[in-house]
Structures are given as structure tokens and as C-alpha cells.
């Protein structure tokens, strides 16, 4: 008997058929991987299972019994829990509040905060998911936030746990931790549906795998029987070959230089990014990025990468130190001036900083260029030019949208990211700051963006790649700097690091070995 069986599930959003008569079965206590390109319909299928979307057609069986959910409450009552792709957390509330909301322990009419904290501590210890119960969610790292999400589901007694791209925001170490947790849960009898774009992870953790493509199921098989290459081909319909990288010329012109840059916590941009705390966020960081090279910044998120990104694009003034671009001091120039000097930036938080989701595709594609030729002439926008440009980028970067007038908010996450990457790379920059550029992207899109970055490198651009994705950093970078607690603890040519070295350095161990 299946733990969950979904039969001929169909879901339409207007003209879009997100799920087209999808059959999907999960066995009890298995880890089932759900694969598919961006927009294949994975999230939609799972949201239907969780009662968030109402299906247009089809049947759902839980433990063999037909069910009909009119909302998540029903799904939760049937032991289904879901960790969402975009976290469902209220940033201003505490960890405890987020976890217990809807299932609060009471003392009389009051919420028993002591008990709630205790419950959180208890579950988090049982499953080895450490979080500070009193921290405000907006002030903890994404990895931590994810734990909060998992705790939420576990506290509600989930027997079927849906994890929608949980690893997209995690550092390698954290992915390892998550897998340990998943295995422990599985041993305890929990069924897990796991969505990912990383075939390595599929192989590492899952028992079986289902592939969706264009809203239809194309295959379900035992993981052991599927090679990564086959799966990739099933997903995107073509073979994915990792891009080749030409040799590195170590003596290009220095484009970006940071000299002893420090940023101390407090208000300022920190207030806007939600980070709090008064410790040093960047500590005496010095580095150079030369034209024709990719400098990779490896590190667990929350170790100063965001501050680094903000300092370089001018959103944050360092407390000390200087930033030079082509030899010119840009420390106090501000985002406008820095952009005008030819800096492109793919922000790490694309939803918040990369797009205006109620603007159309065409409008978003000139964000940051709204005052520059050819899109504006003496302050007047040039719709012709803007539309031509949009059409070009949408084509070049394979942004899937119904039209150029579509609000960007209605695009899938992957397509939003492609749009941002396309916009930034097409600006003809001489420095590219790419922060988590492939987060959440499917293998096809990831491959595409990697190729684009490498092409930029061939053109002699200087590229600063900030990524929590070890494989990505290793595959693309000429040199790698490891950040830990606001400091650069190692900076060497890429080939001098082993994967293990990097992992240890990122975890704050082996600082002694830093060069």
C-alpha cells in the first residue's frame, strides 16, 4: 500500500497546465525524489497534496484511503507536512512563535511560552535540529530557517514530509546535516518527498525518483537504476555536458580591489537586510579580481558574503578600508555611480532585490538601466528599444514567459533568475558580481548560466562569484577565497584546494592551514 498515491492529477493556471494527469506514488518510509526542470510542476503537485491548491481533476489517496483536502489543516490532520520552496515564516516573529503557531500550548487563555520553548527544544534535540528558540526568524541564517520549517512539520506529527528544494539554500555542511536528519526520520518511519535540482543529491539520499517534464510524469524508477546522465536527459530532453574551462592567465589587469575592508554590525543596510547583532561582519578583507578571471568566494552563507556584495555594489559603506574599481576609489560612490562604472550584479536575494514583481518582463529588463541610452533619451523612455531589448534577452536566455507584458511575479523562480542574469550580463560590464547565481535553477539553466559566466571570462571580464555551492565554485573559479566569520581564511588558486579542504575551511576548521 502506498503512503501517498496521486492519480491523474490535473491543475491549470489560466492557460498554463501545470500538472497534466500526473500519477505519483510514494511508498511508506521511503525517500522519494521528485525531479524536473524549473516550471515542470513539482511545487504545484506538492501544493495540491498539502491542500494549498485545489486540483482540477484527479484523486489522492493517503494510506490507501481517498482523501479530499480543503486546506492545509486537513492535510496536516492526515499527517502531511511540507517545507516550502519559499519559506513560510514570519520574519518578525520568533522561532518558537513560528513553530507553534496554529498548535499553541496553552496555560489558561494564555499562550504558554515556557512550554512552547520547551517543545521546540525537545523536538529540535530529538532530531538534532539545533535552533535558538528565542531568535527572531529574520535574524537567523537560511539554513537555520529551514530547520525551523522542518521543526514546524515535525511538531505537527508529519508522517509524510515534503521538502521542496530544501538544499537550494544550504551550505555543503548543512546539506550533510539535512541528509542525516532525513535518514533518521526515515528510520523512524517518516516518508519523505524530496525535490531537488542536484542529481548528486538524488543519488546520495533517495530510494526512488520520479521525473516530471512539462507537467507530465515521464518516469519513476529506483534510484539505483538511474544514472545522473539519464535523469538529466529525462528532465531536459538533452544531454548535459559540463562546460570546459580554458586556462587561466593570472596577470590580467586588476579590476576590483578591496583593501582592508571592514564592516561592523549595526544599523544601516543591516537593518534593511534584517541581519542584527553588533559583531564584525567583514573583518579586514583584502582581495583583487583581475580581468579574465573568476574569483570564487566559498563559504557558508552568513559569513559576510552579503556584506561583501553590498559593499562592492555600494549599498553599504565599510567602516574602514577602501574599494577600488579600475584603480578608482569607489568606496563612497553609491550604487548608481558604481553601476555606471560598469559593474553588473546578480543579487543573492533575487525576489527582494533583483526584480520588481509587479513590473512586466520588459520593464524588469531595464531595471538599473532606466536612465541610460538606448532605453532612455534625455529622461524619456524609449518603448521600442525597451521591447526590442526584452525580446532579445528573453530569447537569448530562454526566459519562459507568455509575453513581455507578463508581470515578472508570475514567472517561475528559475525564469526570474534567468531574467536577472540575462539583464546583468547583457549590460556590457567589466566587473560582474554574481551572488548565488544558480540558486534554485534546474540543471539546464544552471549549465546555461555557467556557460554564460565562462563566456564573460573569455571576453576578459572580471568576475566575483559568491556561492555556497561548492561544486559551482570549484567548477568555475580560477582562484578561490574562503570566507568564515567575516574573514578571508584562505585565498589560493582553485586547483590547490581539495573538496575536503574547502569543506573544513568553510566550517571554520583548519584556519591554521590558511595561506
Amino acid at each position, binding site marked *: 500500500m502506498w503512503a501517498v498515491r496521486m492519480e491523474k492529477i490535473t491543475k491549470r493556471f489560466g492557460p498554463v497546465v501545470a500538472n497534466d494527469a500526473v500519477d505519483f506514488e510514494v511508498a511508506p518510509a521511503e525517500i522519494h525524489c521528485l525531479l524536473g526542470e524549473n516550471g515542470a510542476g513539482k511545487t504545484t503537485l506538492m501544493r495540491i497534496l498539502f491542500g494549498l491548491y*485545489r486540483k482540477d481533476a484527479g484523486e489522492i489517496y493517503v494510506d490507501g484511503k481517498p482523501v479530499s483536502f480543503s486546506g492545509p489543516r486537513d492535510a496536516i490532520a492526515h499527517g502531511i507536512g511540507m517545507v516550502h520552496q519559499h519559506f*513560510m515564516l514570519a*520574519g518578525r516573529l520568533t522561532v518558537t512563535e513560528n513553530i507553534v503557531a496554529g498548535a499553541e500550548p496553552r496555560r489558561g*487563555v494564555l499562550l504558554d511560552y515556557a512550554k512552547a520553548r520547551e517543545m521546540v527544544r525537545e523536538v529540535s534535540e530529538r532530531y538534532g535540529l539545533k535552533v535558538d528558540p528565542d531568535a527572531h526568524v529574520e535574524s537567523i541564517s537560511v539554513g537555520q530557517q529551514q530547520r525551523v520549517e522542518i521543526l514546524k512539520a515535525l511538531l505537527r506529527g508529519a508522517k509524510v514530509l515534503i521538502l521542496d528544494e530544501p538544499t537550494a539554500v544550504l551550505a555543503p555542511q548543512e546539506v550533510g546535516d539535512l541528509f542525516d536528519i532525513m535518514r533518521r526520520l526515515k528510520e523512524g518511519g517518516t516518508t519523505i518527498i524530496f525535490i531537488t535540482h542536484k542529481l548528486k543529491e538524488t543519488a546520495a539520499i533517495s530510494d526512488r525518483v520520479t521525473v516530471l517534464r512539462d507537467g507530465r510524469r515521464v518516469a519513476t524508477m529506483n534510484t539505483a537504476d538511474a544514472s545522473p546522465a539519464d535523469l538529466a536527459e529525462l528532465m531536459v530532453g538533452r544531454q548535459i555536458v559540463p562546460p570546459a574551462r580554458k586556462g587561466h592567465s593570472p596577470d590580467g589587469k586588476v579590476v576590483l580591489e578591496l583593501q582592508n575592508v571592514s564592516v561592523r554590525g549595526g544599523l544601516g543596510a543591516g537593518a534593511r537586510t534584517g541581519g542584527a547583532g553588533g559583531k564584525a561582519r567583514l573583518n579586514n578583507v583584502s582581495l583583487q579580481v583581475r580581468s579574465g578571471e573568476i574569483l570564487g568566494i566559498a563559504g557558508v552563507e552568513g559569513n559576510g558574503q552579503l556584506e561583501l556584495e553590498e559593499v562592492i555594489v555600494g549599498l553599504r559603506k565599510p567602516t574602514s578600508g577602501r574599494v577600488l574599481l579600475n584603480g578608482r576609489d569607489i568606496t563612497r560612490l553609491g550604487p548608481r555611480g558604481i553601476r555606471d562604472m560598469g559593474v553588473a550584479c546578480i543579487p543573492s536575494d533575487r525576489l527582494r532585490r533583483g526584480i520588481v514583481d509587479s513590473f512586466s518582463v520588459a520593464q524588469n529588463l531595464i531595471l538599473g538601466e532606466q536612465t541610460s541610452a538606448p532605453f532612455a533619451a534625455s529622461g524619456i523612455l524609449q518603448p521600442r528599444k525597451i521591447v526590442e531589448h526584452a525580446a532579445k534577452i528573453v530569447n537569448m536566455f530562454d526566459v519562459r514567459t507568455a509575453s513581455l507584458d507578463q508581470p515578472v511575479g508570475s514567472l517561475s523562480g528559475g525564469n526570474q533568475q534567468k531574467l536577472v542574469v540575462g539583464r546583468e550580463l547583457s549590460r556590457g560590464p567589466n566587473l560582474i558580481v554574481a551572488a548565488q547565481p544558480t540558486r534554485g535553477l534546474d540543471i539546464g539553466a544552471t549549465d546555461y548560466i555557467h556557460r554564460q559566466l565562462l563566456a564573460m571570462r573569455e571576453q576578459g571580464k572580471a568576475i566575483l562569484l559568491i556561492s555556497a555551492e561548492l561544486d559551482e565554485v570549484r567548477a568555475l573559479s580560477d582562484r578561490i577565497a574562503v570566507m568564515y566569520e567575516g574573514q578571508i581564511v584562505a585565498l589560493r588558486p582553485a586547483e590547490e584546494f581539495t573538496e575536503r579542504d574547502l569543506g573544513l575551511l568553510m566550517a571554520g576548521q583548519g584556519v591554521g592551514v590558511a595561506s
Partner: protein
Amino acid sequence: MREILDVIFDINNVTATIRMATPIALAAMGGAFSERSGVINIGLEGMILTGAFCGVLGSYISGSPWLGVLFAVVGGGLMGATLAVFAIKLKADHVVSGVGLNILALGLTSWLMQVLWKNRGTSVSVNGLPMFSIPVVRDVPVLGTILGTHSPLVYMMLILIFLGWVVMFKTPLGLRIRMAGEHPEAADTVGINVHAVQYFSVILSGCLAGLGGAYLSLAQLNWFSMNMSAGRGYMALAANIFGQWNPIGGLGASFLFAFTDALQMRIQTSPIKLPTDIIQMLPYILTILVLAGAVIRSRPPAALGRHYESGRAA
């Protein structure tokens, strides 16, 4: 100089402050509940007005001012329910629904007044609430003057503000309200009925503003007068924001507004000779200065003003 200090530190200013802050603080707390749940409430003005009217109507019908207070709470609550239906169920823009409600309340109360009492301007006088003195407190020198004798609704306000704070920050319901206003999807996915929580909050908001109205018409006065809310709903709106969507903060802001107003009134009859219009500007200028000086970055609930529809219906 001496005279100026006498004017500023006149203890009666403080007593007047408490009186004048009462309706504003109640409505501000109403605003806090509504907005914490995600529904913008520009309709406080109309809710106060309706409460004031219903209060008099209740006392007129029953002869009992306390039944009048009940009427006011119910009347304000009905206005809240109207706002809720439009803003939540019918997905009307929250701001425009509130504006519409204010106009509706003005028309409705004036109209009913003609129907009931054949007079547009003022109703008949009804039984108002008697003053209440706290036995021991009233004899304490300074405290007695400030807090010793007030309308029972003043004490009720102070208690309600505290209770409101407890509900908002110390109870499961409060958590659900805050979650609905911060992240309705998150609330929905943990099984919280977002709309139910919003209905509750907006209706409660109307009840509280209605009670504020009853204070005007049954405690400060004992009749209804056309448009007697006289902008207090807008002041409550400001007080709620100033108070960071927290009932106690709202009370603080209401005290600030009321105190500067009391000061203004006191200055008018003091030896400080300034043009009346300049004196009357004082509360507003002072508020702006305090706001600028305090550097309070108001951060509204993240999902304020948004219509939430769980994916079920999508």
C-alpha cells in the same frame, strides 16, 4: 518664565490628557488589531461616529447608559464587520473601503438622527454615564487629581489597553493575528484560518472604536452631535502607527496628542500671548518634532493591505 512653566506643568493638563486620550487610544488599539491582522483601517473615524450614535440610541431606548455602551460596541462592531466583508471577502481596496465607510457613517448617523429625533445637528439628551471616583486614590494629593475621578470608561480604557496588549502578545489568538498580518501564507500553511482571524480582528477593531465613540457621546457628553468624532479617527490612525501597532504604544501616542492639545487649550487662556491659530498649531507641530526626534522607523505588518486568498480557490 515662571508663568510659562506654570502653564506647562499645570496638573490639570494631565487630567485633561487622560480624558481626551481615551477615545483616541481605544480606536488606536482597534487600528492595531485590524492592521496587525493585515487589514488597513481608515474607517476608524466612521466607527467612532457610529459608536457615538449607537451609544446615545441605546441609552435613549433603554434609559440605561450602560446598555448604550453595549449598543455602541455592537454598532462599531457592525461597521467593523462591514469593512471586513468588503476588505476581506469582496477584496475591495482596504483604504477605499475605509474612506467609503467614513462617508457612509456620516450620512447614516445624520440621516437616522432626523428620522429619530427630527433634528440633524444634535440628538435629544439621554442618560449619560456618571463619574466614578476611586475611594483611596482620589485623596492622594497629585495622583488623586490625575486619576482619582473619571468616567468609568476611562478606567475601562486603561484596563482594555492592557488586556489588548496581553491578547496581542501573550495569547495564541494574538500570535495568529500577528502571523496573519505578517505572512498569511505561513499562517495558512499551519492551519490558521486567515480570514477568520482577520474578521475577528476587524470586528474587534470596530467594537473598540465604537467604545471610543460611546466615550464621546455618553461619558464626555450625553447626546449625539453630527460628525462629533471630529477627526479623532484620523488621530487614532496616526497614534496607532506612532505606537508601532502596539496598544500600549498607541496609548502613549494618544497621550502625546492629547497632552499637546491640553497644553494648547491651556496656553490660550494663559499670559502667553500668541495668535490663536499659531497656538492651535502647537499639537501638530510638536507631534511632528517628536516623531522626527524619536527617529521611529515605522515598520508596518509585512502583509498589510494585501488580499490573501489561499491557493485553494486559485
